[in-house]
C-alpha cells in the first residue's frame, strides 16, 4: 500500500503532522511491528501490508501527550478502539490525524503454520499466499491464514477518520458468539475443566494487558496496593483466574472486541472469550451495544433501566 | 386492502343482512372482507373460567388462520368480537392458557396472540377514517335522529376491548355523523339488553329494553342502530319500540350500495 506511505510522508513533510504512527517492516513480510516515524528517513522502513494486524489506537494515549499532531493508521476495527478511548478522554482528537486504512482481513503467520507449513523462509501476502520453505514452495489460502478475529469482522466502515485510503471488506464468515455458546452449553464440570486447562497455561506475562486498548489504566489494580492484590507472578492458581475475570470485568462494556488479547497471547489462550461472553450478555440483557461505535454513548455498566433483569436470571439460564 | 373476516353463526343465518351490507360497503370503501376458510362458532359468550380451554379453541383456530395469512381479523357481531378479543388477550398474556391451548391445537407454529382483532367499526374509524367515509357518502342521511346502541359486549371490559371509552363511547356517534345523520346521546346506550336471558326470562329482557327504548325516545331518537343481532332481537321485543337497524344497513344505504347488497 504505497499510497498510505506516500500520503503519510507528504503530511509529515508539509508539517501537518509531527510524526507518523504505523508499522515498521520486520525481518520478514509477516512480522511488521508498530513504530513511530519522525523523518523522511525513518519512513523508509514504513510498511502497510496484510500482516499489519496490530491495533495502533492504544499508542495514541502516549502520543497524545507529545507535542504536535500524530498521524495514525487505523483499520476499520481499530477505529472503534480509538473512539472508545476518545469517549474516555484518553486520547486527544485534536492531536490526531487519522488515516483510515483499507483492510481485507489480516494474516497471521501462526495460522500459516497451523495449516501445516513447516520451515518457512519467506511468505507474501497475496491471495493465495505464496510460501517459500526449506522444503520447497507451497500455497496457503488467504482465508486459512486470516486471523481468527477477522472471521467475525465488525464491518468495513471506519467510525472515525480524517481521510480514507484503500478499500475495505467485511470478511466475517463465522458466528461471533458460536464459541461462547458452545461453552455455555457445557456442564459446570466441563466448563471448569475447559478454563482450568486454558488458564493454567497463563504465565502472567501481561501481554494481553499491555496490548488491550481498553486495559489502559495508568496503573493496573494488580500492580497497586489498593486491593491487596499487587503481585508480580501468581501466588496461586486462583489468582490467575481472578486476574482474568477482573480484567474482563474492567473492560466489560468498553471492550470493542478487537481481539488483540488473543492475538498476542504467547500461550494461545482464547482470552477474547471472556470479553465476548460479557458482550453477549450485555446484548441479550440490555440491548445491542458496540463499544466505540459512538463516542457519545453511555456504556452498559454506567447506565441502567428500572426493569433490568435480576441477577437470578443467570441461575435461570436467561443469559444463554 | 384485504382483511380476514370472521362472520360468526348468526351472520350466516338470521342476520344475513348485517353481513351482506357490510361486505358491499367494504368494497365501496376499498377494502375486502375475506372469509376464513375454516371458522367455527365462537360460542357466543366468553368462557370466564380460568380452566376453560376447549371452549376457547374455535377462536384460537380462527386467530391462527388469520395469522397464517398475515392479515388482521375483522368481525362484525358484538359477541364474536368480544370472544375473539378476549381469547386473543388470553393467548397473549396468560401463559397457562396459551400453553394448554397450544398443546391441544398442535399448530405448525404455536399461536401467541399475533393476530390483531378488529371490529368492523374500528376499520371504519382507524383504517378508512370517518372523514374519508363522509366523503364517500352519496345518500347522506340528513335529518335522521339516530340512537346508537352499543350494548355491553362491544365495550366491556374496556381494557381488553380497547374499542372506546366504555362509559362514554363516541365511536357510533361519530359514525352516525359521518353518514350525515344526527346522533342522539342517551345514558343507557352501554347498558345491557338482557342478552341470552331472554330465552328463559323474556320479561327481564323486556324490562331492560324498555328502559333503553324510553330513554332513547325521550332524547328524541327515531331509530336505533346496533352491531349485535341479539341486541336487535331483544330491542325488537319492546312495545312501541323504535325500529332497530344494523349499522351496516345504514352504511350501505348512505354509500348507495344497499340495493345490490342482498
Amino acid at each position, binding site marked *: 500500500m504505497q499510497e498510505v506511505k506516500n500520503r503519510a510522508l507528504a503530511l509529515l513533510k508539509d508539517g501537518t503532522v509531527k510524526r507518523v504512527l504505523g508499522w515498521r517492516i520486520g525481518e520478514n513480510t509477516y512480522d511488521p511491528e508498530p513504530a513511530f516515524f519522525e523523518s523522511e528517513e525513518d519512513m523508509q522502513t514504513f510498511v502497510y501490508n496484510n500482516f499489519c494486524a496490530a491495533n495502533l489506537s492504544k499508542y495514541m494515549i502516549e502520543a497524545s501527550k507529545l507535542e504536535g499532531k500524530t498521524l495514525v493508521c487505523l483499520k476499520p476495527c481499530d477505529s472503534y478502539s480509538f473512539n472508545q478511548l476518545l469517549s474516555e478522554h484518553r486520547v486527544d482528537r485534536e492531536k490526531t490525524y487519522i488515516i483510515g486504512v483499507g483492510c481485507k482481513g489480516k494474516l497471521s503467520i501462526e495460522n500459516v503454520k497451523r495449516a501445516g507449513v513447516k520451515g518457512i523462509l519467506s511468505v507474501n501476502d497475496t491471495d493465495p499466499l505464496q510460501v517459500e520453505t526449506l522444503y520447497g514452495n507451497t500455497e496457503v489460502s488467504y482465508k486459512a491464514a486470516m486471523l481468527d478475529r477477522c472471521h467475525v469482522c465488525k464491518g468495513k466502515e471506519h467510525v472515525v477518520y480524517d481521510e480514507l485510503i484503500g478499500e475495505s471488506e467485511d470478511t466475517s464468515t463465522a458466528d461471533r458468539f458460536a464459541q461462547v455458546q458452545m461453552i455455555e452449553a457445557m456442564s459446570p464440570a466441563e466448563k471448569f475443566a475447559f478454563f482450568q486447562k486454558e488458564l493454567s497455561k497463563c504465565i502472567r506475562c501481561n501481554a494481553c494487558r499491555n496490548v488491550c486498548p481498553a486495559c489502559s489504566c495508568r496503573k493496573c489494580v494488580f500492580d497497586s496496593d489498593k486491593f491487596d492484590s499487587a503481585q508480580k507472578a501468581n501466588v496461586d492458581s486462583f489468582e490467575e483466574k481472578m486476574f482474568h475475570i477482573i480484567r474482563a470485568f474492567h473492560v466489560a462494556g468498553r471492550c470493542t472486541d478487537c481481539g488483540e488479547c488473543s492475538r498476542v497471547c504467547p500461550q494461545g489462550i482464547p482470552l477474547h472469550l471472556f470479553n465476548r461472553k460479557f458482550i453477549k450478555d450485555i446484548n441479550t440483557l440490555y440491548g445491542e451495544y458496540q463499544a466505540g461505535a459512538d463516542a457519545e454513548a453511555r456504556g452498559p455498566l454506567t447506565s441502567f433501566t428500572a426493569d433490568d433483569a435480576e441477577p437470578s436470571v443467570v441461575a435461570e439460564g436467561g443469559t444463554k | 386492502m384485504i382483511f380476514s373476516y370472521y362472520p360468526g353463526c348468526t351472520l350466516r343465518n338470521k342476520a344475513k343482512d348485517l353481513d351482506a351490507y357490510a361486505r358491499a360497503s367494504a368494497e365501496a370503501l376499498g377494502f375486502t372482507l375475506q372469509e376464513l376458510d375454516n371458522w367455527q362458532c365462537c360460542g357466543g359468550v366468553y368462557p370466564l373460567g380460568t380452566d376453560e380451554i376447549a*371452549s376457547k379453541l374455535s377462536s384460537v383456530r380462527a386467530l391462527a388462520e388469520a395469522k397464517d395469512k398475515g392479515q388482521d381479523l375483522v368481525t362484525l357481531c358484538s359477541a364474536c368480537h368480544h370472544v375473539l378479543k378476549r381469547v386473543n388477550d388470553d393467548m397473549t398474556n396468560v401463559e397457562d392458557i396459551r400453553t394448554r391451548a397450544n398443546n391441544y391445537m398442535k399448530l405448525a407454529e404455536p399461536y401467541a396472540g399475533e393476530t390483531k382483532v378488529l371490529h368492523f367499526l374500528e376499520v371504519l374509524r382507524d383504517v378508512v377514517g370517518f372523514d374519508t367515509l363522509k366523503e364517500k357518502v352519496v345518500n347522506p342521511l340528513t335529518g335522521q335522529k339516530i340512537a346508537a346502541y352499543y350494548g355491553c359486549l362491544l365495550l366491556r371490559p374496556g381494557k381488553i376491548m380497547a374499542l372506546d371509552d366504555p362509559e362514554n363511547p363516541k365511536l357510533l356517534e361519530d359514525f352516525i355523523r359521518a353518514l350525515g345523520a344526527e346522533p342522539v346521546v342517551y345514558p343507557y346506550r352501554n347498558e345491557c339488553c338482557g342478552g341470552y336471558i331472554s330465552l328463559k326470562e323474556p320479561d327481564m329482557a323486556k324490562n331492560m329494553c324498555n328502559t333503553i327504548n324510553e330513554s332513547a325516545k325521550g332524547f328524541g331518537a327515531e331509530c336505533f342502530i346496533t352491531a349485535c343481532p341479539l341486541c336487535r332481537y331483544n330491542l325488537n321485543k319492546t312495545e312501541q319500540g323504535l325500529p332497530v337497524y344494523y349499522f351496516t344497513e345504514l352504511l350501505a344505504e348512505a354509500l348507495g350500495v344497499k340495493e345490490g347488497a342482498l
Partner: protein
Amino acid sequence: MNAKEQVQQISGVNPYKCMKCGKCSATCPAYEEMDIKPHQFVSYVQSGNIEALAACKSMWKCLSCFACVERCPRDVQPGRILDAARQIVVRQRGGNYLTAEEIPPLVDEDLPQQLLVSAYRRYKR
C-alpha cells in the same frame, strides 16, 4: 381443593381485594331478580359459603354484561365469581339449567343463533 379454593381458582379472582363498596350491586341490571346480590357473591366466597352460592338463583339471572367487572374499583370482578359457581354446578351431572327438550317452545322466528349458543354455554354442561 375445597369448594372455596375451587371458586377462587376457576374465577382467578382474589375476593379479599374487595373493599365492600357495593358498586357492583349498584350497577347490576339484573339486581332485582337476584336472591344473592353481586356484592354478596364476594362475601360468600370470603366466608366459604359456597354451598349457598351454588344454590342461588342469581347465577341464572346474571347477564354476563360485565358492568360489575368494568366498574369495580378494586378489580374484584364479581361476575367472574358467579360464573365460577355456575361452572361448578353445571359441571356436576344434572346441574344443567337448560335442556334440549325445553328449547323448541321458547324459540320464535327471529331468534338469533347466538342466543341459543350463549345460553347453552352458560346454562349447560
